[in-house]
């Protein structure tokens, strides 16, 4: 089976800092991959390379058969890849409902009825149908992040990328976001998640990856990686966060 995401020998420099040192990774359709690692290890950078929010200097990434090279291809990939950010990045000048409509109309060119039905269905799915007419900043962090997930899902993506989706949340709001993500994983969505939420990783992920210093150090199913890692760096990192 052709992997839905193929990352081949990707290098990235920030000035003189070698942020990604030849990453190779293949992700199959329906897999949920959790990426952990210390800050500055390149995990967010790698994630942002998958939809080319970050340019890479060497190597190749192919998403759903489309290589990330020309501007046209990059945009085509972006319409198929949803992204959720640590800081939500909802559009504060639009209501929750309009946040969900904008890209459907502008990018997907959907009609009003279709996009509004989609938006309502998704708000139901993430559990906040009553907040449609609110502005993002009137919502709690957990609610904002769920809107952000719904906004990405409105494009019917084949892949969802999560960049530390719960790191900016108060502890009591983390679970409501993870629940939505878990449901999404159970629906068979292909997901790449940068997060240190071990509970989520164990419950939802097929694969867990530890990155450090711009390299993939170790990969295993989450249960094995968290309880019985082989590499010293993995052990050292896990001892700090567990």
């Amino acid at each position, binding site marked *: 089976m052709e992997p839905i995401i193929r990352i081949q020998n990707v290098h990235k420099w920030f000035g003189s800092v070698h942020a990604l040192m030849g990453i190779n990774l293949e992700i199959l359709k329906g897999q949920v991959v959790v990426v952990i690692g210390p800050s500055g290890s390149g995990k967010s950078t790698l994630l942002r390379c998958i939809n080319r929010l970050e340019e890479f200097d060497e190597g190749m990434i192919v998403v759903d058969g489309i290589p990330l090279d020309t501007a046209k291809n990059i945009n085509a990939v*972006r319409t198929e890849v949803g992204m959720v*950010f640590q800081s939500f990045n909802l559009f504060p000048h639009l209501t929750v409902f309009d946040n969900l409509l*904008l*890209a459907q109309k502008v990018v*997907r060119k959907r009609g009003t009825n279709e996009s509004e039905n989609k938006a309502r269905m998704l708000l139901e799915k993430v559990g906040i149908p009553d907040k449609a007419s609110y502005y993002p900043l*009137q*919502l709690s962090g957990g*609610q904002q992040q769920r809107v952000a997930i719904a906004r*990405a899902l409105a494009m019917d993506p084949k892949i969802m990328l999560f960049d530390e989706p719960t790191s900016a949340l108060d502890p009591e709001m983390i679970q409501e976001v993870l629940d939505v993500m878990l449901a999404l994983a159970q629906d068979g969505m292909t997901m790449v998640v940068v997060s240190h939420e071990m509970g989520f990783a164990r419950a939802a992920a097929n694969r867990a990856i530890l990155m450090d210093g711009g390299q993939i150090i170790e990969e295993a199913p989450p249960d094995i990686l968290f309880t019985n890692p082989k590499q010293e760096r993995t052990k050292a990192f896990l001892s700090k966060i567990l």
Partner: protein
Amino acid sequence: MNSSSLPAPSTKSLSKSDKSEKKSRIDPWWGLVALVVGLIALLYFGSPDPYQKMLPFLKDGIWITVKITLVSFLLVVVLGLGVGLARLSKNTIIRGIATVYVEVIRGIPMMVQIIFWYFALPAIVQQLGVSLKSDALMNFRPDGTTMAIFGLTFGYAAYMSEVYRSGIQSISRGQMEAARSLGMTYFQAMRYVILPQAVRVILPPLGNEFITLLKDTALVSAVAVPDLTRRGREFQASTFIIIETWVMVALIYLTMTLLATRLVSWVEKRSKYER
């Protein structure tokens, strides 16, 4: 960032108290407008000798000043946005050209720029016409108002581009990334996500530029455009009435700028959205 759930109704009461606060601030401003207009009326009716002759003479100039201000401003708003975006471009050449343009324009007095457009530019074109043996270019004699509008537009667009640039840069990078990650093009993201938010930052300095531009239109009197200032000078030259002429010209400019200030704050208020 984690503002815990805020009840929606609070924004309503907030905007209400906001409104009444603004209402009380409007009145003294309108009072000032009334005072200045009243003063003009008082002079007109109380001292008919120079003023009833002077005002009809100045009237044509007022319209030209208003026309030049509005047309130039409209062009400045459009050109300024283009230059502002060019200044933010990733393309080094586009950004370089825009940067040089802004730095050159900002380093030359507005007066010199207007004179250059009216006197030097046509001369350059005419000489070009001589060497190219082109009659059309040799007989190039643009009219003063057009060149004045060009001069003001190119001058002010440089300043305006900086207003746009800082406004756009004030919006967090995450907004552009979120829009792009949804598949929007750069221009769609600008149009639907960045600019609608930047407008709130841009409007106050934009209004400021409008009022400054209105006052700077007086400079076009240097290139034979019969604006308000020019008409004032002509009236003074033919009647030797000095003090009264310039008191009246000053009062008319003041009326226009006060009204423009009101207009600007009205637009600003209307563009505020509740959140």
